[in-house]
């Protein structure tokens, strides 16, 4: 029943749309409940009531919340993300400036962390209980335990302030050569990798060990299948489902969850754009970012599920 796949994808996509709609409703409500509005935030500490009223009218904030939500929703449905209230630029333009930076950082981090994490997980699972496994365990556990802001700050202190090897800030627009590129991305990527590798490696190890304990692996072993083949050919395909999900969850963090790294390295990414948007009560921008993060998350999880299904004949033909 191979044609079950498109049906599944379609089903997932339509339920994603419902999820996105509900998320947008929740975000709108919460943002409206925050004290102060865009006009007050723009005008700041020394606003006069007349200015606030004029700006509210200008921005359409004097209309009832439901009308404003409807305006946003109808715009969004036709692909118009609206204008950012806090600096009179279109939301699409702002996202366009920042999104490539975030995607690049995410791509580099993924390209480095996923292979390392999977290898570490595999090796640890194969050498379960041995010295290598225990060593990897200690490493990954301590990586999980150390908060990323500490990793980032320590990295800056060591590599930028004391040794002077790397820049303390990441400027995406001043990349001239491959050397620059490596120097600029070294520390942010290192910090993110620390968090991600540990999570993914531990999940990979757990998923594999789960399979290695099962009866069919015991059977393979009794037949005389060599250990590497046993793990790669027999156990791994069955563990792809959980591993893909762990990877997807970790990667979804790379868009919206990297705010600490963006702050410490002054990296102009999309997460800090959303934080600004929330503190400026810039509803259109908040909504657009939330939709982006939510959409990316849903897609990643869907891809993970598809990987699991495709890698497993039993699921594929169900």
């Amino acid at each position, binding site marked *: 029943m191979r044609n079950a796949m498109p049906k599944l994808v379609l089903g997932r996509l339509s339920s994603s749309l419902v999820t996105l709609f509900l998320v947008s409703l929740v975000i709108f409500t919460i943002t409206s409940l*925050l*004290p*102060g509005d865009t006009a*007050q*935030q*723009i*005008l*700041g*500490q*020394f*606003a*006069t*009531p*007349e*200015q606030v*009223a*004029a*700006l509210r009218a*200008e921005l359409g904030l004097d209309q009832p919340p439901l009308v404003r939500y409807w305006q946003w929703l109808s715009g969004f449905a036709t692909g118009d993300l609206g204008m*950012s209230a*806090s*600096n009179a*630029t279109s939301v699409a333009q*702002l996202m366009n*400036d920042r999104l490539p930076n975030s995607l690049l950082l995410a791509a580099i981090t993924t390209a480095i962390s996923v292979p390392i994490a999977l290898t570490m997980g595999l090796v640890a699972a194969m050498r379960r209980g041995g010295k290598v496994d225990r060593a990897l365990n200690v490493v990954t556990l301590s990586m999980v335990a150390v908060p990323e802001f500490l990793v980032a*700050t320590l990295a*800056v*202190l060591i590599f*930028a*302030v004391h040794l*002077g090897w790397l*820049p*303390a*800030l990441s*400027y995406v*627009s001043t990349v001239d050569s491959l050397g620059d590129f490596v120097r600029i991305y070294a520390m942010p990527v290192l910090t993110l990798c620390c968090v991600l590798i540990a999570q993914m490696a531990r999940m990979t190890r757990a998923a594999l060990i789960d399979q290695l304990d099962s009866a069919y692996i015991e059977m393979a072993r009794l037949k005389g299948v060599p250990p590497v083949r046993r793990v790669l050919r027999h156990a791994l395909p069955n563990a792809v489902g959980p591993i893909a999900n762990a990877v997807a969850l970790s990667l979804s963090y790379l868009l919206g969850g990297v705010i600490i790294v963006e*702050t*410490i*390295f*002054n990296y*102009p990414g999309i997460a*800090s*754009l959303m934080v*600004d*948007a929330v*503190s*400026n009560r*810039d509803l259109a*921008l908040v909504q657009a970012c939330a939709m982006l993060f939510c959409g990316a998350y849903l897609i990643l999880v869907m891809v993970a599920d598809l990987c699991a299904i495709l890698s497993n004949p039993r699921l594929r033909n169900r």
Partner: protein
Amino acid sequence: MKHDKNDDRLVSPEQSLEVYRAMQRGLSRRDALKMLGAAGVLMAGAGSLPGVGRAFAADAAGQGTPKRGGRIRVAAHSSSAAETLDPAKGATAIDYVRAFTFYNGLTQFDEQLHPQPCLAETFETTDNGGHWVFTLRQGVTFHNGKSLTPEDVVYSIMRHKEPVVGSKVLSMVEQIESVRRVDQQRVEFNLVSPNIELPALLAVSHLVIVPDGTTDFSQGIGTGPFTCQEFAPGVRSVAVRNENYWREGRPYLDAIETVGISDESARVNALLSGDVQMINNLSGRNADRIGQMEGSQIKATNSGNYTDLIMRVDQQPGSRPEFVEAMKYLFDREQIKRVALRGYGEIANDQPIAPSSPYYFDGLPQREYDPERAASLLKKAGVAGARTSLVVSPAANYSEEMGQLLQQSASQAGLNLNLNRVPADGYWSNHWMKHPLGFGNINPRPTANILLSQFFASGAPWNESGWSNAQFDQLLVASRSEPDPSKRQQMYADMQTLIHDHSGIGIPVFLSDLEGFDSRIGGMDRTVPLGSFMGYMFAEHVWWNA
């Protein structure tokens, strides 16, 4: 009142002083024989041996003489997608710095906060401040090649009066009735009521001159020392030298890149690692750290920024004058300066005018910490042993620390203060001035009169404590049109005394602006006590020694 074209006077004393200092340093380092030899050669004829002459000149120049060229990166403390090149909307240091980088005002402040000519060559009033005529400098062009005309001035000022522009200085320009073109070179300002200090008002970053009709400010088209090469809000801006700048020889730097780094330790690390060369808004702890490092320096400026205790005099318990007075006696100002500010501040005396202001009254007796006197005043007010809440927030700098110290000294005097901590987010619209006891934070204002008019005049929207005093209001209005400086001085002294004695505001200390910079930046000894970054005007005054 008449000001002449005194551009040369504006730059030359400082420059000559710098040359003098450099000469001293250069000469003292030199071996006497060698110096005599070199001098002899120079005397014999510098033209014949240009190499020697140049070497000597370069060595003698050292650190102190402006140098052309170089690129620096400056990091301000706030970074947000709401950053703007529209001068009217400027909200934080980074916006003000950019305003003075790309634009010029009609006037500009000198180190004593006196307004000096800038785009206006001269300015004068004929009737003690009711009407002003500004004569524009000739041959000034905007970055897009357009010449500066009176229409640009009219537009730049009058747009602030439109509520939808969202100007931050609407309340200041309300006193300007109209701005009118007189002829090709002159504009006339008509004021609602006389103001002898109008030229000072026109020196603020919000009132810089933009081309007539501008609505899109993303290009930063002004007459300023730098042109805008790149501007991405919340990311960075790149300013490059304006080759056609009207002030001869300025700016010194080739380019200035401005970024915002909101995280303080990231900002400090960026300075220490050499990624940026100038940062602002430091805490005392980090200032100490930077001061200890080689290659970087600290600059502390008292520009009159203060965090004040607000006691609403229209609500209980602030409506009892003895209570207000008691609270002022409960500030252990020395302790607040030492503990909360780590010494980076100046003791204040419950009145808002800082010692750097030309109108500061130093004859006012300092109010000391006196818990016993406070206790008896509290008893007289009938609130001894009472419990009341005090609102503090990170939005009002250091208010949490001040609140804690106040809580301790209040408990000794028999008053229980409950600290009510509220978040910084939304503080100014939801909490500021809305509680019987709370804190505010006031940034420096360009003139003493603006400060007093905005925060102490009866019925002013930001009269924080709701204080009203007819005598004060009278003095305030009279001082605006008083042509005699010594009489004006006396009026300001009286107003400071009135605030000190009666208003519902307690000002324990002035907060210093702390900034750190790379020692290779020259010209940093210039101070304009209006804010960090040399009153936000550093761009055309600093150079790079590398």
